[in-house]
C-alpha cells in the first residue's frame, strides 16, 4: 500500500514538473574557470545555435562534470586532459552512460617547469636539463619560508597525481635537496608565478601546454623519458620512477544519448578537432585582448569559418 502510494506520488510529481522544462531540451555545455575552455564552450554553443539547436552554458567543476555527463545532466565535456581527468573520465565510462567522442588534434604536455626569466637570470645554470637540479646552490635559490631550506616544487592539487612528484624526487635521488608542496588549485599556481617573479625568487611549478602561460614564456624541465610502467604505482621501481610525464591526449566526452537526441550536433562535435595554436588563440583573445568570452568566440568563428563549415557538413 505504502509502496504504491509513493509510486503514485512520484508519477504525479514527474508529470507535473519535468514536462515543463524538458520541452526545449537545450544542449548543455559545461564551462569551467579557464579562458580557452570557456571560449571553446561559447564557440560550440554559437555553432549549435546556427544549426538550429538551443544551447545552454552551465558552470561546472572540472572533474565532477563526468558524473554529470554520464547521467545526462550535461551533454558534453569538451576538454578532457589525460593526466588530470582520465581517472574520472574512465570511471564514468565504466559505470555506463559516457562515450568517447574523439580527440582534439594536438598532443598535450604537462610537466614541472620554470618561467623563462628563471633561466635567463641564471638561478639554476644547466636548466632545462634536470641534472642541474642536483646542484645544492640551485636548490637554495628555490627555497621558501616553509620548505626547511630545501628547494620547493609546487605541484598541482594532490588529487591530480597523488604521490608521483614526491616519488620522482626520491627516484632521481634529489629528495634531500628538494621538497614537494601541493597547491590547492590552479589559481594558486598562477598566483605563485606572479609572486615569485615580483620577488625575484626562483620557482618550479607544475604547468601544462597549451596554456596561457605559453605566451609569457615557460620552459618544461627535461626529465628521463617516460615509458609505460616506469612509475612506482604502475609497477616501476625506485630506479625508474624518476621518469618524466607522458605526452597525452585531449579528448571529448559525450552523454550516451547525445547522438540520438541531437544527431547533427553530435556529428559536428565528433568532427570538431582543434589544434594547439587554435586553443592558444582562444585564450589569447580573452586574456591579452580583453574580449569577453562570447565575443571572443564570435571572433574565433569568423576567423575559422571554413573549418567550422567543414565540420558542420
Amino acid at each position: 500500500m505504502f509502496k504504491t502510494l509513493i509510486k503514485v506520488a512520484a508519477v504525479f510529481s514527474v508529470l507535473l514538473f519535468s514536462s515543463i522544462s524538458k520541452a526545449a531540451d537545450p544542449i548543455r555545455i559545461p564551462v569551467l574557470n579557464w579562458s580557452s575552455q570557456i571560449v571553446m564552450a561559447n564557440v560550440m554553443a554559437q555553432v549549435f545555435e546556427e544549426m538550429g539547436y538551443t544551447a545552454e552554458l552551465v558552470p561546472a567543476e572540472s572533474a565532477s562534470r563526468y558524473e554529470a555527463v554520464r547521467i545526462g545532466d550535461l551533454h558534453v565535456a569538451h576538454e578532457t586532459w589525460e593526466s588530470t581527468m582520465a581517472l574520472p573520465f574512465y570511471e564514468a565510462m565504466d559505470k555506463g552512460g559516457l562515450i568517447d567522442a574523439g580527440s582534439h588534434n594536438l598532443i598535450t604536455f604537462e610537466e614541472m617547469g620554470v618561467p623563462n626569466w628563471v633561466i635567463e637570470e641564471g638561478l639554476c645554470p644547466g636548466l632545462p636539463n634536470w641534472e642541474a637540479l642536483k646542484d645544492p646552490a640551485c636548490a637554495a635559490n628555490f627555497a621558501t619560508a616553509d620548505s626547511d631550506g630545501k628547494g620547493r616544487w609546487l605541484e598541482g592539487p594532490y588529487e591530480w597525481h597523488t604521490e608521483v612528484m614526491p616519488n620522482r624526487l626520491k627516484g632521481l635521488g634529489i629528495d634531500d635537496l628538494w621538497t614537494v608542496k601541493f597547491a590547492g588549485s590552479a589559481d594558486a599556481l598562477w598566483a605563485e608565478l606572479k609572486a615569485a617573479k615580483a620577488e625575484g625568487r626562483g620557482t618550479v611549478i607544475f604547468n601544462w601546454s597549451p596554456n596561457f602561460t605559453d605566451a609569457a614564456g615557460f620552459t618544461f624541465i627535461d626529465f628521463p623519458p617516460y615509458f609505460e610502467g616506469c612509475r612506482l604505482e604502475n609497477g616501476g621501481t625506485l630506479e625508474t620512477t624518476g621518469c618524466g610525464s607522458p605526452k597525452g591526449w585531449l579528448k571529448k566526452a559525450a552523454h550516451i544519448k547525445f547522438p540520438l537526441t541531437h544527431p547533427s550536433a553530435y556529428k559536428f562535435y565528433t568532427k570538431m578537432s582543434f589544434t594547439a595554436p587554435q586553443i592558444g588563440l582562444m585564450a589569447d583573445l580573452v586574456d591579452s585582448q580583453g574580449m569577453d568570452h562570447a565575443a571572443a568566440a564570435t571572433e574565433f568563428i569568423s576567423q575559422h569559418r571554413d573549418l567550422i563549415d567543414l565540420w558542420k557538413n
Partner: protein
Amino acid sequence: MLNNFKKSKPQQFSFLILIFLFLYFVVPEDENSLLWRLPPLLKDIPAFINYLLDNLMFNWLTIPVYDPDWGMYEDQAIVRLITRSISDFLLFLIIFIREFFLGGMQTISSLTGDSLKGLKLAYLPAIPWTAVIMGLFILGYKLQGLSLALIASLGFFYVSVFGQWEPTMETLSLVLVTAPICFFLGLFFGILGYLSKKVETTLQPILNVAQTMPHFSYLVPIIVFFGVGDHAGAVATIIFATPPMIRLTILGLRKISPEIVESGLMSGCNRFQLLFRVLIPTARRDILIGVNQVIMQCLAMTTIAAFIGAKGLGFNLKVALNGLKIGKAAEIGICVVIIAVVLDKLSLAWANKQKDYFANLSFFQRNKAFVYFLFLTLILGIIAYFSAFYFEEGINFLYLIPFGKGLTIAPLLDAGVDWIWETFFYYLNIFNKFLITYVLFVMRDAYLGMPVISTFFLIMGAGYIIGGIRSCIIVGGLILFIALSEYWDRALITAYMATFAVGISAINGIVVGSLCARNEISTKIILSICDFFQTFPSFIYLIPVILLFGITDTSVMIAAIAYASVPATRYTVEGLRSVPSSLHDAGSMSGVSNLQRWISIEFPLALPHIMLGLNQTVIFALMMIVLGALIGTEDLGQIIMGSLSRPGGAGIGFTLGIFVSFICLAVDNLIRTWTDERKKLLGIN
C-alpha cells in the same frame, strides 16, 4: 583542601592540564599502541555512503519509465525521479524570473511546446535596466521614503554602470527564488518545532550539522541527487540558509508571553487563527531577523553555488580569480554586497510597513506606485527601443550594458594591491618566515605529537569540569568518531590551524570591539564593516593573500583571521552595548576609571555574549580553513576539496564534513554549557 578543590574551577583546570602534560610526555610514539592512536575502525563509512547513494539513485525502488529518445521503457529509481522533478521545478522558477530581467523565451516555449519555436515574436524582451532602477526607486519610496529609494536605485545603478548587470540579474533571480523558499520552509519547520517538543529535539542536531558543515562536503551529494545547474546551486543555498530561519522562528514563538496566547483564546480564535493572527504577528521581530539572515546567507553562498552550476556573480568571480584579476574580482564582490544591502533594507522596510486600513480607495489610489512603474517602464522601453538605432556595434546602453563594457575601477584596485606588495613585501616576508618557523610549525608538530589518550583526557576533562558527566560524554563521543577514522592526523592539523586562527581572531575582535563600543558612531561604523565583510565573498581574499605570503599556512591563517574576526567583533560590540547604562553610572559614581569599569563591570557582564561570539568565530574559522585548501593545506580541508574531483568523492567529502561539524559541535557544547551557567549566575536571561 579537597572541598576547596571541588569548588575552584581554576584549580581543577590546572590539575587537568598537569595530567594532560604528563600523559603527553610519557606516552611513547608508537603506531601500534592504543594510547598513541586509535585503530581506524570506522574507515568504511565513506564507501557505505557511496553504496547508499548509488543504490538510492539507480537501483532501489525502480519503476519503468518510457523514454521517448530510446523508444523503450527504462527502469528508473523513484528517489531520482522525485529529486529530478524538484530540480526541474526550481530551474523553471529561476529561469522564469531571469527572463524578466534579461529576456528570453525558454519558459514560454516550454509551456507551449514546439509550436512557438519558429516565431521571433515569442521572445520576451528584458525590462531595460533604467526601468528596473526606476522601479526600485518607486518601491523604496513607497516602502520607507527617499533615503531607501536612493540606496536601492543608486546601488543598482552602480551595478549597471560597472557592466555587471547580466551576472547580477542571474544571481538575483537565484536569490529571489531561494530566499522565499527558505523563508517558508523555515517558518513551517519553526512552527512544527514550536508545536511539538519531539520535532524540535530531532530538528536541533540536524540544524547544528547543516550550519557547521563545510559547504564543499555536501556539494557532491547534491550533484548526485539534483544534477548540476542553477537548481543545484539553489538546493545548496537552501540547505545553508534555512536553519537560522527555523531557529529564529522557534525562538520568537517561544518568547511570546502566555497572556497573549490567552487573550487570543478568549477572543475565540481557533488553532489556525491563533497561529496566524496572534502568534506569528507577535513574533514578527524575530522572524524578521530570520528573513534578514536568510538573505545574507543566500548571498554568502553565491560563490559556492557556482561550483555546482549556478550562473551569475559567483561564476564570474571564479573566472576573474583564475586570471589573478583581483581588481575585477573585488568589483564583483562589491556587487554581491550591494544586492545584499538593498534586498535586506527593502525586506525590512516591507515587513515593518504598517498595513493601512483605509477602505473605499479607487483602484488608482490603491495601486498608484504600480501604475507609475508600468507607465515609466513603457516610456523607458520605448526610449530603449529607439536608442538602439543611436548606439553603434549593436550595444544598446539604455537597454542593457553588456558584461565588460561598463566603467571599471579594477586597474586602480590592482595598482593598490601592487603598491601594498612593493611597499611591504620585504617586511611581510621576514614576518612570514618568523611566524612559520617559530610559531606555526612548532604548534603543528606539538599537535601531531599529541597521544590520543591525552587529547581525550583534556577534552573530556574540560567537558566534565564545565558541564558534568553529560558534557563529558557528548564531547568525548563526538571526538571519538573522528579518532576512529583514518583521518585523525589531518584532523589534528585542522585543529592546530583553528586554534591559532580563533585565538588571534578573538583577541582582534575583543580589542576592536571594546574600543568601538565606547561610542555610538563608532559602533555603527564597525557593525556596518562587519556586515560588509560577512557578505563580501571570502574567496577574494585568497589570491592577494597568496601574493603576499606565498602558498604557505600563513596565507590560510591570514584569510581565516580576516574572516573569523567578524563574529568576534560583532558579538563583543553587541555584548558591551547591552550592559545597562545604570550599571555604567553606578560604576562611575563609585569612582572607577574607564579601564577599571571595562575590566570589572562591562567585560564580565558581556562575557557570556562574547563567548557565544567565540562559538561563531570557531565556525567561521573552520569554514575558511577548509576553503584554504584552495591555497594548499594538508588537513581535512584538502581532502574535502579534493572530493569534488575524485571518483567516489561523495562519501569521503560528506564524512569529513561531518567531522568538521563535530569539532564545531564539541566546542559549541562546551561554550554553551558554560554561558548558560554563567548567565544564571549573573542573573541575565
